[in-house]
């Protein structure tokens, strides 16, 4: 049991970090950016391509992070240019199109051959219950906390955060008030792309590193973000961690083997129903 929990730490950090990025993006840009993991994948593959031509790892990784930021900024530009006044539903649909577009373009650009992916955080931190806890797991957890705390500070303590929130929640009013926020919003997108690239640079070497599998990390990340109702950062952090730990425990157990894929989502459904219990039950009464 404890061994399972420890073995799910890295996955928990991954889901939490990506879930927090989703939540932060939703609050700052009013978009459920389903392409956020895919932009990070673009960063990973740019890194691999450059490292393959003899670049030193850190330079290649930096270029990868920049590439991830650039791809995400491109998505953000499309969103602010043509869909600034559309509702969150439309913008989410557009982000699905962007997700599919990035995956297709990445396959064309990089093919499906496995890449050499150096692990920047392969060292060991500790051994708990016979499980080696790697630097990667710690870095991912730290990244999740940093993303969560950073967004929280930005939103509650800075005038910049206030303007971004205004832009996300009342775009037309904000513009009429003379606050130009398009450049700012695109910067948020770029930052999200860079952070997602950082997360994936740590994750990709120890997970199935094909373009599709990595891009689809967005599914558990979405589940994590949902646990926070796409608004509460702490909820997304806890949700991501819980999902990862649950995955670790269930994968190690013979009893629930058959239902492993269902359990996390059944749990999410229950929690969502519980958190909305007043609305659900009061309405039915």
């Amino acid at each position, binding site marked *: 049991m404890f061994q399972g929990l420890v073995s799910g730490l*890295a996955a928990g950090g991954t889901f939490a970090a990506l879930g927090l990025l989703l939540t932060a993006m939703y609050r700052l840009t009013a978009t459920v950016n389903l392409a956020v993991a895919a932009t990070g994948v673009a960063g990973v593959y740019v890194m691999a391509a450059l490292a393959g031509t003899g670049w030193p790892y850190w330079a290649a990784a930096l270029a990868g992070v920049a590439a991830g930021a650039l791809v995400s900024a491109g998505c953000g530009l499309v969103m602010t240019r043509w869909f600034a006044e559309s509702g969150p539903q439309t913008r989410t649909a557009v982000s699905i199109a962007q997700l599919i577009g990035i995956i297709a373009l990445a*396959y064309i650009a990089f093919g499906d051959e*496995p890449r050499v992916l150096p692990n920047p955080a392969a060292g060991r931190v500790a051994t708990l219950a016979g*499980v080696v806890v790697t630097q990667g797991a710690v870095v991912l957890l730290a990244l999740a906390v940093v993303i969560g705390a950073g967004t929280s500070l930005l939103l509650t303590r800075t005038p910049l955060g206030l303007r971004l929130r205004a832009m996300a929640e009342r775009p037309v009013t904000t513009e009429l008030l003379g606050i130009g926020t398009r450049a700012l919003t695109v910067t948020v997108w770029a930052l999200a792309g860079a952070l997602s690239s950082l997360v994936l640079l740590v994750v990709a070497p120890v997970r199935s590193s094909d373009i599709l599998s990595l891009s689809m990390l967005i599914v558990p990340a979405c589940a994590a973000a949902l646990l926070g109702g796409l608004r509460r950062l702490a909820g997304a952090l806890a949700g991501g961690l819980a999902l990862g730990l649950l995955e670790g425990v269930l994968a*190690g157990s013979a009893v629930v083997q058959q239902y492993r894929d269902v359990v996390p989502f059944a749990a999410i459904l229950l929690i969502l129903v519980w958190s909305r219990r007043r609305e659900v039950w009061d309405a039915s009464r």
Partner: protein
Amino acid sequence: MIAMRARAVPLAVLLAFPLSVAGCGLSDEPPSASSGGAGNVIKVGGVSSLSGAVTFPDSSAAAKAVFDRVNEQGGVNGHKIEYVSADDKGDPAAAAQAARDVVTNQGVVALAGSASLLDCAVNAPFYQQSGIVSVQGTGVDPTCFESPAVSPVNTGPYLNMAINLYYASEVLKRDKVCMFLAILGNTNDAYGGAVKSWTALTGKKLTLDDRTVKPDSDPTPFVLRARREGCQAVLYNGTEPMAIAWMKVVKQQDVTGIDWLMTTAPYTEAVAKALGPDGDGMYANAEFEPFTEADSPALKDWRELMTAKNVPLTSFGQGGYLAATYFVDTLRTIKGPITRESVAAAFRALKPVQTPMTGTPYEFGQAARHFSNRAGKIVRLKDGAWHVVTPEWVRYPGTLG
């Protein structure tokens, strides 16, 4: 007049619709399958995954290389071969369309060198109805091995798994054999058949049978479970990126004393390069004479041809090369016109063909299902390079199904 034409168009579409629907299920006579006189072209088809998420371009490229060489040397009895390779895009609808285009519109006499995840599953009944044979270069889905119209030259994932089980328990003499599978599509029963066959053959049972790995799973909990359950040999059917992640976690978690046996899928140069020394101790099952053996006399012709025609040296390329070679050799035995019927008859009458590139002879004949390649050579990664550990073929004494 204009009004009449405008009305005629939808009518023509309506008329054509039932015809095309009929084409989906029923056999069609090819418009130009016959090649009676000398100098005519023999059209040969292939349906492969050439674009999409998982691609197999090497098999059809290798088949084309074989046909090109035959053409350069004067063709088959004076007839040139035209290879029509269609792309199924990894999509069932596109696969059905590709097969109908190649078989019905192009009128090919047979299919050779196809490599796809779903060609057989989608098209095998259509091939059977059309009276056409397919010498599959790489069969992956279970239907490839369960159709009278299709006989793959490769071992396939299921027999590959059975050979690995046999190797682990009977050759390596491991008592605790465990299996982790990622089940994609309709493969569960076929893998189950492989395990059943091995149990019937050896009387042994798996210590652990976990079929819940997903392509995007973190392998850590699975690898730790294998250690906790005391597995001595672990079989895994991961693709290239999955096998890489698996072995990296094995190293990361310091798991030692377990033999990790993979199928043919991760037996590639890219995996060796991506893993480097992290892959030490990983086995794979080569379904043909291992292509990484540069000096193997069995591979001399294949290697020279692939290099000359710029086809990557891979296991898939071996499949395409063998499929095309068997096909050309069979064509040469046909007396009289080369048609879909005469080619199908020649394959139904084919005697087992032995080449040094496979451990068991290639068969077609009249069997309802085809599992002719029942051997593998086991290779192991050491310091980022593949080495053969069984110079002799590991032949599977049982059969599937």
